[in-house]
């Protein structure tokens, strides 16, 4: 592995300065995306800025709108949080199905959302729940945050501090995992807020996570699994690779959306 300088700042201010001073420095969160690509020589940062010792990047709290999760909170902590399962059970369930137990002990919300891997789970929740990404510089609405696979609105010296997820009436996440890697070949997150329905899709799109207007319109008209039967999912918008063709992914989008809606309807909405 190419040598680099390791920094372990204790405050966000120090972390931002270290990022500004080192042009090709990278932030280190859980490391389970970055370290493997460094081992392959696909990333060769001159410095790593580890965020693990910054206290304000950890923790979960309730807000008037929903729940706020600090960026370095690990997947296992989100999955086990009574606050998250109380406010948004689908979000806790999503976190509890990321990767495997060892990955969930290390991986973080901020790391996942900053990486924006096209097959990651969290971006689907951020987009469907209309979450607010808080950074060291500003707040970014979910719809302005994701800019294509592995690309986000973050500036080079900007760090995600936390993400606030509004509490929906109903929400559900379903995914079809690749049997070996466990990553989502397609994942669908459906969230309903009053008369609004948001459907986001991860793993399938050529440009990473996206919302599907056709599915949303059909589900606003009638929130039932059958209501999407006639919705066209354009296979040309789907990714195609060794694991799944465009047509297969397009079909999975509808299958998983139906499952989400059926699951929502089987549960009592919040008061």
């Amino acid at each position, binding site marked *: 592995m190419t*040598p680099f300088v390791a920094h372990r700042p204790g405050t966000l201010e120090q972390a931002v300065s270290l990022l500004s001073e080192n042009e090709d420095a990278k932030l280190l969160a859980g490391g389970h995306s970055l*370290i493997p690509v460094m081992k392959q020589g696909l990333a060769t940062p001159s410095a790593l800025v580890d965020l693990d010792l910054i206290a304000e990047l950890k923790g979960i709290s309730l807000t008037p709108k929903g729940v706020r999760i600090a960026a370095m909170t690990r997947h*296992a902590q989100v999955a086990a949080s009574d606050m998250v399962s109380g406010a948004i059970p689908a979000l806790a369930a999503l976190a509890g199905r990321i*990767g495997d*137990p060892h990955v969930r002990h290390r991986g973080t919300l901020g790391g996942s959302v900053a990486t924006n891997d096209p097959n990651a789970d969290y971006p689907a929740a951020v987009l469907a729940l209309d979450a607010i990404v808080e950074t060291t510089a500003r707040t970014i609405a979910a719809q302005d945050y994701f800019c294509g696979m592995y690309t986000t609105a973050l500036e080079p010296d900007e760090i995600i501090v936390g993400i606030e997820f509004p509490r929906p009436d109903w929400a559900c996440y379903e995914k079809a995992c690749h049997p070996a890697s466990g990553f989502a070949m397609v994942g669908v997150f459906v969230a309903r807020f009053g008369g609004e329905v948001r459907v986001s899709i991860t793993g399938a799109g050529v440009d990473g996570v996206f919302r599907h207007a056709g599915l949303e319109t059909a589900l606003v008209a009638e929130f039932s699994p059958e209501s999407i039967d006639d919705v066209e999912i354009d296979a040309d918008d789907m990714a195609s690779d060794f694991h799944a063709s465009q047509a297969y992914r397009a079909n999975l989008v509808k299958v998983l959306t139906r499952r989400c809606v059926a699951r929502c309807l089987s549960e009592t909405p919040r008061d």
Partner: protein
Amino acid sequence: MNCEFTVNGKIIAAEVSSTLLLADFLRDSAKLTGTHIGCDTSQCGCCVVHVDGRSMKSCATFAWQVNGANIVTIEGLADGEELHPMQAAFRKCHALQCGYCTPGMIMTAVDMVNRLGQVSEPEVIREQLEGNICRCTGYHNIVRAIQVGAAAMHGVEITAPEHETGKGQPA
């Protein structure tokens, strides 16, 4: 970077380079070669150790990231000559053939029981083994061993269930 770890109860001070992975530190510096490196791409789980009580893949962690931590490897489970109940269960149930994945499997099994209690449902155990790959056994005997080991860790002796019924009878 100067670091200090507690490894299997012993304090080890070491100067580690930035690129040194925890798995390599344990194997090459601490001479604890029970922690294996299988895929080196975070898939197989052969390198799983416990850091501050939680399982983690030591091949995807730099040693300096766990400076100050309490680390337990497969060598730290047995009490002298007496095997840890999970190790004894793996032996009793023939839960290994080549044995390469076994240290990671056992560390994962112990972590699973520490978090979830006396696991017995095969579906739960198999889901918890998502991050560990075995290419010999077909997993059946590993699942049985974890049922038996989880019970033993709770002071309950069960016979190895024949068909993963999850309903092993007290002996």
